[in-house]
């Protein structure tokens, strides 16, 4: 755990929420599921594009085409088809909500579930995590961040087995790039065609499918097929246009649709000549669809374009009522929800289910651009951006006190995550308009969200920019932003930045009215002091924070208080008073158990395990550490698991089991690299000691073999091995192993075991069935008198069972 280093000061967060980086096992990455409607008429294109992706010489495939051609949908289908051909599957990164190309690496890291640390920024995290992966990396909507194209080139050169599938209106112009221009849907043949021929044309099929979805009794038949075919021709076979037109089948028959559409396109295609024809025809189709909306629907639609990455009904209501003087005109006020439903029916909005079943709406980028233009033309853009920003400020500020371990916590964090694009847009607007108060309030309210969800670097950026804006008199608003800034810097181990910021925050907080601010500032400074090895100062800061909490009646977030107690114990340990530390941790543990805070309890347990190691009570240490690891594993706290491996390695080392210790240290190293964490302080001292003990106990060759075998274990396998090690004390003494007689085949199996191979991999390597391989492994265990793979490997390496 980053505890002593400050990284993870809050307990229930991990226990009640699955961290975004909780990915491990065979398939680490997952694609979003496809829409329920099938992809129509793209069989040939899918075949062509998948052939290109299978080509070893092609590292980057860019699906290009104008807005509305269906690039995203196509890429998603393609990725689902190709996923199985990549060992590590496929990962999908939506870049639509990102407009700042500097945020690209951060967006990719977030989508891949990679966390940042002080030492490792997002690009480095991505390089380490992907360098050995065989992965299809899907990057959707690249066009607005094209300056980031060289960075994508770098990823591909660092990670030789990663392929990128990109969607973009324009190619990226990288040398490794292969462009695939997605054509429009095949159009129906000329007027001589029979209606069944027409009915089997992709464009017509798409129309029929969408029309049927909005009007259950719609059927393609001889009488309307010619009209539908003509509609598709007029719309150039562009899927989005066809979808927008077909959505009107709820109110218009195909003949009425065609008549109105033809007229609309004739009027509108005249638009800006610098747009390619197809783009103009899409704009015309959007405009046509827009013109069919009632006035209040148009007004709402325009405003909805300010949302980035979708919105909820509440958010829509907030901006709908802004400056509204016309609503009272109608005798029957129409609810925003009704208007939204109409817009969904018109295909101008998409509806999806949010993470907690609430409806969320979004616009395709092409459609959103259109809405923004209308808003700008009407001169309303600034006003609506203001209300958008005010609304999301309120959301952030209202959520903030509930984020620390309340029952609402997981729910609220998910909501904030879903609106992250809106917070970014609101913060950018506050900066642009020089609204320091909003920027400070919003960043101050969001820092804990950024922390829990691993958006540390981005959060620090916004906080630093907000703090730089405000030249006015400092107050509690500023104090909270400073606390946030120090909190995130602390987490990233950047104590040099954190400490002066937190001291400033403490100074302001002591004079401000918010009772919890001094506890924050003192607690975070205390955590930083622990990491700096300044235990006396740490003890006094933490004591003061804890007593302020007592004075408040214990109102402060109890999970954070638990963390402060744990650190108080670490400070006592550092001061040489291990008994006092044990007393503090024992009390903290009781409290954490009572509050059902498994992650907090796991922290206390690991410290108690380390104390047992210090006392030489290895059985006790193993027992405590076993429970700690189980709790961490259950809450998928990966960096804590890495530290758990180091502690277990320490126990093994003290038992004289150096090879298993070396393997676990290797596993811990890999895991830390993957998640970008580092061992906490003062555990580091203990781990360094373990490492040197292993180095001096084993020959370099043996140590290196065991270490690299440990490095190549999956996290799940390493955890299994760690539990096995804690459960099994004895390994067979080396002398008795010389009696063991292994067949050549068993020697082969043992060699592969030493390399950390699974049964399946052993079977593949030796061209035998998995079942036979399992049989060999079981017989080997039997002969060696061991019950775990680790023990078998240890036995092999400690003896001369494997002639080289």
């Amino acid at each position, binding site marked *: 755990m980053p505890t002593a280093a400050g990284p993870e000061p809050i307990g229930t967060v991990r226990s009640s929420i699955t961290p975004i980086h909780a990915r491990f096992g065979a398939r680490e990455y997952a694609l979003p599921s496809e829409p329920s409607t099938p992809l129509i008429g793209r069989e040939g294109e899918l075949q062509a594009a998948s052939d290109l992706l299978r080509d070893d010489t092609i590292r980057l495939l860019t699906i290009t085409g104008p807005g509305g051609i269906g690039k995203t949908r196509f890429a998603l289908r393609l990725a689902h088809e190709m996923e199985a051909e990549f060992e590590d599957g496929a990962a999908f990164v939506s870049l639509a909500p990102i407009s700042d190309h500097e945020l690209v690496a951060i967006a990719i890291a977030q989508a891949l579930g990679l966390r940042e640390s002080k030492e490792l920024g997002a690009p480095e995290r991505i390089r380490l995590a992907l360098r050995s992966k065989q992965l299809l990396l899907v990057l959707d909507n690249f066009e607005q961040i094209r300056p980031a194209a060289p960075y994508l080139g770098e990823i591909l050169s660092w990670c030789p087995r990663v392929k990128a599938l990109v969607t973009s209106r324009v190619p990226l112009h990288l040398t490794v790039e292969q462009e695939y221009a997605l054509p429009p849907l095949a159009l129906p043949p000329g007027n001589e065609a029979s209606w069944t021929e027409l009915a089997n044309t992709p464009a017509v099929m798409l129309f029929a499918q969408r029309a049927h979805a909005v009007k259950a009794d719609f059927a393609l038949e001889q009488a309307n097929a010619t*009209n539908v075919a003509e509609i598709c021709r007029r719309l150039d076979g562009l899927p989005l246009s066809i979808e927008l037109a077909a959505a009107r089948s*709820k109110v218009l028959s195909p*003949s*009425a649709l065609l008549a109105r559409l033809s007229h609309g396109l004739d009027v509108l295609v005249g638009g800006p000549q610098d747009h390619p024809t197809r783009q103009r025809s899409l704009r015309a189709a959007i405009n046509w669809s827009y013109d069919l909306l009632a006035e209040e629907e148009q007004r709402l639609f325009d405003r909805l374009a300010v949302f980035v990455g979708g919105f909820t009904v509440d958010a829509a209501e907030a901006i709908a009522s802004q400056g509204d003087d016309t609503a009272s005109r109608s005798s029957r006020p129409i609810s925003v929800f009704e208007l939204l439903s*109409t817009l969904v029916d018109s295909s101008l909005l998409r509806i999806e289910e949010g993470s907690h079943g609430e409806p969320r709406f979004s616009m395709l980028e092409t459609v959103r651009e259109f809405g923004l233009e209308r808003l700008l033309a009407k001169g309303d853009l600034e006003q609506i951006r203001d209300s958008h920003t005010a609304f999301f400020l309120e959301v952030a500020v209202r959520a903030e006190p509930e984020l620390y371990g309340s029952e609402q916590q997981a729910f609220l964090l998910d909501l904030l995550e879903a609106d992250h694009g809106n917070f970014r847009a609101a913060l950018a607007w506050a900066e642009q308009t020089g609204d320091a108060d909003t920027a400070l309030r919003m960043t101050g309210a969001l820092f804990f969200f950024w922390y829990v969800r691993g958006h540390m670097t981005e959060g620090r950026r916004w906080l630093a920019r907000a703090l730089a804006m405000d030249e006015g008199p400092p107050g509690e608003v500023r104090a909270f932003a400073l606390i946030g800034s120090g909190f995130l810097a602390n987490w990233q181990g950047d104590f040099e930045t954190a400490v002066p910021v937190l001291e400033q925050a403490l100074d302001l907080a002591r004079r401000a009215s918010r009772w919890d601010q001094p506890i924050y500032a003192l607690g975070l400074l205390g955590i930083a002091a622990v990491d700096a090895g300044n235990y006396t100062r740490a003890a006094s800061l933490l004591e003061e924070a804890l007593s302020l909490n007592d004075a408040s009646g214990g109102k402060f977030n109890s999970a954070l208080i638990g963390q402060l107690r744990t650190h108080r114990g670490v400070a006592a340990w550092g001061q040489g008073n291990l008994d006092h530390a044990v007393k503090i941790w024992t009390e903290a543990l009781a409290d954490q158990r009572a509050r059902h805070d498994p992650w907090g309890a796991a922290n206390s347990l690991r410290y108690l395990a380390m104390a047992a190691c210090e006392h030489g009570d290895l059985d006790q240490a193993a027992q405590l550490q076993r429970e700690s690891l189980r709790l961490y594993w259950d809450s998928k706290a990966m960096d804590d698991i890495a530290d758990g491996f180091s502690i277990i390695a320490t126990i093994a080392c003290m038992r004289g089991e150096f090879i298993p210790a070396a393997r676990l240290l290797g596993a811990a190293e890999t895991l830390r690299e993957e998640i970008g964490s580092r061992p906490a302080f003062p555990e580091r001292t203990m781990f360094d000691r373990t490492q040197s003990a292993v180095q001096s106990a084993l020959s370099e060759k043996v140590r290196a073999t065991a270490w690299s075998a440990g490095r190549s274990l999956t996290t799940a396998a390493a955890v299994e091995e760690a539990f096995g090690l804690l459960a099994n004390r004895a390994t067979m003494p080396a002398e008795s192993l010389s009696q063991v007689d292994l067949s050549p085949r068993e020697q082969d199996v043992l060699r592969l075991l030493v390399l950390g191979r699974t049964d399946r991999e052993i079977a593949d390597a030796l061209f035998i069935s998995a079942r036979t391989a399992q049989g060999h492994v079981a017989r080997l265990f039997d002969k060696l008198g061991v019950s775990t793979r680790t023990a078998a490997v240890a036995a092999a390496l400690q003896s001369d069972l494997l002639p080289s």
Partner: protein
Amino acid sequence: MTIPQRIPDLADGAANKEVARRLMEEVWGERRLDLLAELVAGEYVEHAQIGDYYGPAGARIGVGDYHLAFPDLTVQVDELLTEGDKVVRRFTLCGTHTGSLPGWVPSGLRVELHGIAIDRIADGKLAESWILIEPLPSNPGPAAG
């Protein structure tokens, strides 16, 4: 037992005429598009020259076209007749053609258009209409359809 025979034509006919009158005077004339939800059935079908329009939302598009095309539109109901569940309405639209109407580009001319429609009324709402409105004078004719 003698239950007084209901006389549908007289009572319903008057009520049906009232629906058609409100459609013309209030919805068309006073631009009360919000009343369509009240006057028009969910499964309403309007058979217009260029094709069918469905439901209150479809009816809104049909009326809305004329509101956009003639910002100064006035509506006069010339005659209402009733038979069974049907109402026949004859009407006159007057206005300056400054907005776009499907098939016709704005001419800026002051025009008078005569129209006639047959409405079927069910449960006090318009269930189906057949409508003909004379074309605009001196125009290129419908662009398509």
